[in-house]
């Protein structure tokens, strides 16, 4: 029987609650967003006592469904001021689901300055003092917790950036090897966790795949079918397992959509040097791994293990991170990228936001473009809490204001990821309109725009991008609720049997009779709830726009501007 674990940090009360009927069919993002909508006043201070941090496994998490161990973390974002769901891999989701926990809700705020650890085991949950963990980086915290509570525990934690309530702070958890690198990174939810004075949540579960399903035979057949669909698709079966997400570096560069030098150019002459192909070569030569699963039961295994020259390991280096510290800063050295990535993981920051912020700082002349050592030195300021460190942890939009920079790639205060909206206009529509602030995953139009998955829509033309983004945002909102990794979408978009297989797993697990239309309606409902929260928080259509320079400055090599009209952008959610 699944339950909510509600932790009131004002009173210190920790209690399990029965899940009210209305939340039973929800999981992952659908659940975090609905709970935030129902329980968090939209106008509240994101770091105050009325905000809540909601952590929820997806609907299929903790079963044998392939690649289903995604974790949703939700709340009101200190970065955007709107609703946020950040989605992570790692092992926490499956463990929570196997403990019968549908969601953890952290609420209130303690009066004192003590830090706490929430320990969750099959026997129950308790708050413990965590003063000894305060100030420590996430790698050390995770190592201490695994030492103290067992090698197999999942550790959900924040770094010093989260403790210092920085708007770019993320919430991390670990993979099976203990790397605290699986981030619910975006939107500053690490600061929300920090505001609750929770340094870490330790989840100890003996089981990983044993969440009860109503019809085990039917479920097993559907799961097997879905695994085959993933293995048979060229992207999920071959592309992702071979080179990981950073295989994108070269194709986005060749397509002329790789944001270079803070979104000034669409190509970077050293792109190949920081690509997935190079990464795989170096990782393997140094004894690392070109392919690795972020959680047990993943068939795509798009992660990697990159040994750094200093003997530490950065696992993984993802495409977004390689881009934001590479081409975005005109840095063509994977070792520099790995170091910046590692520091972010350790200090507890979202890599994309930090990369965008470093780009803005370079624009302002605070650090030079192309200077890896200067970027590393700046990032090392974060843990010290110096003014520069706090600016860096404050995100790109804030840094732009402080330094008077107008070339700031951000929407709703959140930094734009690794596809220039002038060279991949479908993603431009998604950046502008998603309730999350600029987020590539919210409606990943790179599929049809560049990868030729799920059809083809010319990335350089304005036509059809709104419809493409709309359909992807709806499907994504559902996938993010299912616990499945969003990357299953590559196969689902091309294989008409994909979505029915997912629906079949849900029906077999919960004893339901859902149709594909029903689950897409769930996606629509998620978006409606999120949009409504944002509306009540003060957002209008004026917030659904890209920064001005994207419509004014042409992006080489195709010399295009973002020209999807405002009235069209306002039609994305017309359902």
């Amino acid at each position, binding site marked *: 029987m699944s339950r909510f674990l509600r932790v009131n940090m004002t009173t210190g009360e920790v209690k399990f609650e029965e899940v009210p009927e209305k939340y039973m069919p929800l999981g992952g993002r659908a659940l975090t967003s609905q709970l935030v909508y129902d329980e968090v006043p939209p106008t509240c201070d994101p770091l105050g006592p009325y905000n809540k941090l909601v952590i929820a496994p997806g609907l299929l998490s903790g079963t044998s469904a392939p690649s289903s161990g995604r974790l949703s973390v939700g709340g009101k974002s200190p970065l955007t001021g709107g609703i946020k769901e950040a989605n992570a891999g790692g092992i926490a989701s499956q463990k929570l689901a196997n403990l019968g926990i549908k969601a953890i809700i952290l609420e209130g705020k303690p009066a004192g300055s003590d830090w706490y650890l929430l320990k969750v085991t099959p026997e129950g949950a308790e708050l413990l003092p965590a003063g000894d963990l305060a100030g420590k980086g996430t790698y050390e915290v995770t190592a201490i917790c695994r030492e103290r509570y067992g090698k197999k525990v999942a550790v959900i934690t924040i770094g010093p950036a989260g403790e210092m309530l920085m708007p770019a702070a993320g919430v991390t958890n670990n993979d099976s090897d203990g790397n605290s690198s699986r981030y619910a990174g975006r939107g500053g939810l690490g600061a929300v966790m920090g505001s609750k004075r929770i340094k870490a949540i330790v989840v100890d579960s003996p089981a990983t795949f044993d969440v009860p399903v109503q019809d085990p035979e039917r479920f097993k057949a559907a799961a097997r079918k879905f695994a085959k669909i993933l293995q048979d698709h060229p992207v999920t079966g071959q592309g992702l397992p*071979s080179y990981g997400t950073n295989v994108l570096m*070269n194709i986005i560069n060749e397509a002329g959509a790789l944001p270079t030098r803070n979104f000034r150019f669409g190509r970077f002459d050293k792109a190949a040097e920081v690509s997935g*192909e190079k990464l795989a070569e170096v990782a393997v030569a140094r004894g690392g791994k070109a392919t690795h699963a972020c959680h047990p039961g993943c068939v795509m295994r798009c992660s990697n293990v990159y040994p750094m020259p200093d003997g530490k390991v950065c696992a993984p280096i993802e495409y977004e991170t390689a881009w934001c510290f590479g081409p975005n800063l005109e840095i063509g050295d994977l070792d520099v990228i790995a170091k910046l990535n590692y520091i972010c993981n350790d200090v507890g920051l979202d890599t994309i936001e930090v990369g965008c912020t470093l780009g803005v700082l370079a624009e302002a002349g605070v650090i030079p473009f192309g200077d890896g050592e200067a970027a590393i030195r700046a990032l090392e300021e974060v843990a010290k809490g110096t003014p520069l460190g706090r600016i860096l942890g404050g995100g790109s939009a804030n840094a732009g204001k402080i330094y008077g920079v107008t070339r700031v790639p951000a929407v709703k205060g959140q930094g734009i990821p690794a596809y220039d909206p002038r060279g991949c206009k479908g993603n431009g529509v998604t950046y502008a309109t998603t309730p999350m602030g600029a987020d590539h995953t919210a409606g990943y139009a790179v599929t049809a725009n560049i990868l030729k998955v799920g059809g083809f829509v*010319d990335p350089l033309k304005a036509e059809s991008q709104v419809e493409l983004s709309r359909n992807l945002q709806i499907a994504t909102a559902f996938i993010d609720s299912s616990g499945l990794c969003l990357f299953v979408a590559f196969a689902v978009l091309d294989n008409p049997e994909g979505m029915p297989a997912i629906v079949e797993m849900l029906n077999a697990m919960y004893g339901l009779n859902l149709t594909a239309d029903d689950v897409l309606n769930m996606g629509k409902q998620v978006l409606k709830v999120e949009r409504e929260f944002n509306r009540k928080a003060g957002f209008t259509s004026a917030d659904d726009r890209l920064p001005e320079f994207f419509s004014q400055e042409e992006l080489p090599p195709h010399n295009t501007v973002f020209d999807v009209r405002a009235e069209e952008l306002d039609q994305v959610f017309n359902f």
Partner: protein
Amino acid sequence: MRLEVRVFSGLEKFMPGARFGQAIEVERPEGTTVAGLVDSLGIPRSQVFTVLVNGRHAAMDAVLQPGDRVSLFPPVGGG
């Protein structure tokens, strides 16, 4: 005519000495199509999933022009 070819993500294994992302200059007759180029490079067509010519998607029957930058990819994805 002279073409500038780049291969990626494993396709380089079909071309001895080639390295991913490195520009390879080749001479081909006028009128050569993408398919003709791929065949002449010894890369099985079934392995080529995406073709970009000067950064734009091109079909296998597209006719190449002098100086074109041709980039060949197997299935790739991520995000």
